[in-house]
């Protein structure tokens, strides 16, 4: 039952249009910093572009996908018309206004601070207010997901909450809480300085606040992907979820342990002591657990599909899989990239290993592999799967879909592997250009060139994706039927309350965040004389 199709489509179209623009900027950036391009006469253009690319890809695009997908899940999994559709539209328009408001100063070169808010570098106030509007708009979605689940529970007392909705609401709570860190930084520190009420700011404290948001946000981006792994892929390839319980445990674990880990972003910082760094490192290790569980459950679910199709033997079943099915292709690519990206992540979180690659191009490689690769390729898959239900028209050309997915996978590999390599060699990230004429830097030129080529493969894939969706809006009308989610092998009849509600886990999430962040933030806030003069972007 999808009633508010226009609402969902609006979210997806805005998300993908913004994604297309940001993708083009990304490709341009890689070209300009590679030996293929000429040095920019005005390197500041690079940082404008980077700020826009990061802000859109980090805040606007995944948030809109999670919201649109969330509304779709709410209506189709709960079989219930969305409660509060008018509020949902309000949230959507807040994001539109916020995104435009943020991008104007960025385009004018008044907010080239990148998407990581690291004072005392301060951009134009409208950039920050725009970002706040985007976040507040998304908080409306959080509230609506919670309300819709509550309405459903009242109508279905004691019934197991459909897995897709359970995960969706967990993701929304994770987002609501992780956004608080950056919100505190913006409201308490940055915005007062950017409007000129204060002239000094504690840069160390700001970095700690931002780290609160900066890592768990990745797990919020990941949620739609994991929901697709569990509740779309098995159905789309004719299988079953191996274990509904394990899926719920994974989502709960994300909710609880994804939050209090951000300080591994400050391993090389002077304002946090070693103790909390170690605690956060250990928690970051812990957050690998839900992913390990997911890899197991999804591989088992896929195996079920293969065996139902007659696959045999220890590994023979792999050939029995429907490899021409784009959903399986996307899943396979996603898992490969998740594997490489995750291995890199374990290195980043290791307290000691981090030193060799901290803030180098390796990091860029790592998170593009995870977010741009493993996560975004499943966003494509979600869109392909939902489109016929949203438009009432079939996506007929599966060959084109497969080509698009292949290009994305290849592009991501060609882009990120050289990045990891030059990162190990010590190439810093976020630089407008490199002097490849310097003999010490020249050996990196070839790797950087490969990355730039990868960027254009990605751009081609992104354009193809938009073309496929746009063409899908005009293909012949078909009845796609009800939007369905995967069933489990053992579909639960009853569910223990802990696996059917979020209250306990939200309490744990908040409690753990307070123990892991409370003391460092309090000490920093109470230390005298650590505020430093603000440096305004574009001020002469």
């Amino acid at each position, binding site marked *: 039952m999808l009633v508010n199709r226009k609402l969902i489509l609006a979210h997806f179209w805005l998300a993908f249009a913004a994604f297309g623009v940001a993708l083009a900027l990304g490709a341009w950036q890689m070209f300009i910093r590679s030996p293929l391009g000429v040095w920019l006469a005005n390197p500041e253009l690079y940082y404008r572009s980077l700020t826009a690319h990061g802000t859109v890809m980090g805040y606007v695009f995944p948030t809109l996908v999670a919201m649109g997908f969330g509304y779709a899940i709410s209506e189709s999994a709960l079989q219930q018309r969305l409660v509060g559709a008018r509020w949902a539209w309000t949230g959507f328009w807040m994001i539109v206004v916020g995104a435009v408001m943020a991008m104007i100063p960025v385009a004018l070169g008044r907010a080239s601070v990148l998407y990581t808010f690291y004072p005392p570098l301060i951009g134009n106030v409208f950039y920050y207010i725009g970002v706040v509007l985007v976040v507040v708009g998304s908080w409306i979605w959080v509230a609506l997901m919670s309300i819709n689940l509550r309405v459903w529970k009242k109508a279905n007392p004691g019934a197991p909450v459909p897995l897709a909705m359970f995960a969706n609401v967990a993701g929304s709570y994770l987002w609501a809480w992780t956004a608080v860190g950056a919100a505190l930084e913006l409201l308490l520190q940055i915005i007062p300085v950017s409007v000129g009420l204060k002239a000094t700011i504690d840069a160390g404290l700001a970095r700690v606040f931002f780290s609160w948001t900066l890592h768990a946000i990745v797990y919020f981006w990941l949620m739609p992907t994991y929901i697709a792994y569990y509740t779309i892929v098995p159905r789309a390839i004719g299988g079953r979820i191996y274990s509904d319980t394990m899926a719920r445990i994974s989502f709960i674990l994300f909710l609880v342990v994804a939050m209090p880990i951000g300080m591994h972003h400050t391993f090389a910082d*002077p304002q946090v002591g070693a103790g909390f760094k170690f605690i956060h*490192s250990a928690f970051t290790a812990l957050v690998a657990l839900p992913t390990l*569980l997911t890899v197991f459950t999804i591989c088992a679910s896929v195996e079920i599909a293969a065996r139902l199709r007659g696959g045999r033997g220890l590994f023979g079943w792999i050939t029995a899989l429907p490899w021409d099915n784009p959903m399986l292709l996307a899943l396979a690519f996603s898992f490969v990239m998740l594997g490489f990206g995750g291995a890199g992540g374990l290195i980043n979180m290791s307290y000691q290993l981090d030193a060799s690659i901290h803030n180098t191009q390796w990091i860029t490689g790592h998170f593009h592999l995870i977010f741009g690769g493993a996560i975004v390729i499943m966003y494509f898959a979600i869109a392909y799967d939902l489109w016929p239900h949203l438009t009432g028209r079939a996506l007929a050309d599966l060959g084109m879909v497969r080509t698009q997915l292949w290009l994305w996978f290849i592009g991501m590999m060609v882009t990120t592997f050289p990045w990891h390599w030059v990162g190990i060699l*010590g190439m810093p990230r*976020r630089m*407008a250009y490199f002097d490849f004429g310097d003999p010490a830097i020249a050996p990196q030129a070839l790797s950087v060139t490969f990355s730039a080529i990868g960027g254009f493969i990605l751009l081609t894939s992104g354009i193809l994706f938009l073309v496929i969706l746009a063409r899908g809006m005009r293909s012949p009308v078909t009845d796609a039927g009800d939007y369905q989610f995967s069933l489990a092998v053992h579909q639960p009849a009853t569910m223990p309350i802990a696996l059917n509600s979020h209250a306990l886990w939200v309490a744990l999430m908040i409690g753990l965040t307070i123990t892991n962040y409370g003391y460092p933030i309090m000490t920093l806030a109470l230390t005298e004389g650590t505020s*430093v003069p603000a440096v305004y972007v574009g001020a002469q």
Partner: protein
Amino acid sequence: MTAEDSHHGADIAARVERRWATVAVIIIVMMAVLAAFAGIHRATMPQPRVETTDPSRLHLSGEFVESNLGSVLEANGAVTVRAIGQQYSFTPACIVVPSDTPITLRATSADVVHGILIQGTNVNTMLVPGYISEQLMRFTRTGDYLMPCQEFCSFGHEGMWGKVRVIDKAEFANRAKAGGRLSCVGQ
């Protein structure tokens, strides 16, 4: 399939899952134990102490006044290097240090967030204005190393490259005899 079969299947599934979950937990505990061991036993730890300094007074008084920047040979044979980062350079722009000697790098920022990274080594630290970064280092190979700023520090970031010159221990001791703070700026 009867109800018992289904039950049996569910039991097997649960058992297999539990086994996998146990393996996953063991992997993670192992990683944490390794990190703790390396941290405690081998003393490979990030900076443990938090020290503050006022960036607007760096050039007037205290540890980071201009005359105190550069490398100094301490009485115990160790070397301390003091440096600051500012938009868009390091002072000193060329740091000279001896090989095979324990070195303590103490650095801070005079304006925005910068980072020090010495290519080809594990020396990598953030410079946050208001706070002092301390990093232990030791070089076994003489020669020049590039030292870029690894954090975006506004429009001139791409031009912020320093250098570290590692020279022979004896040569360094010889140069240090004259006293003062050593650097390789202009050499």
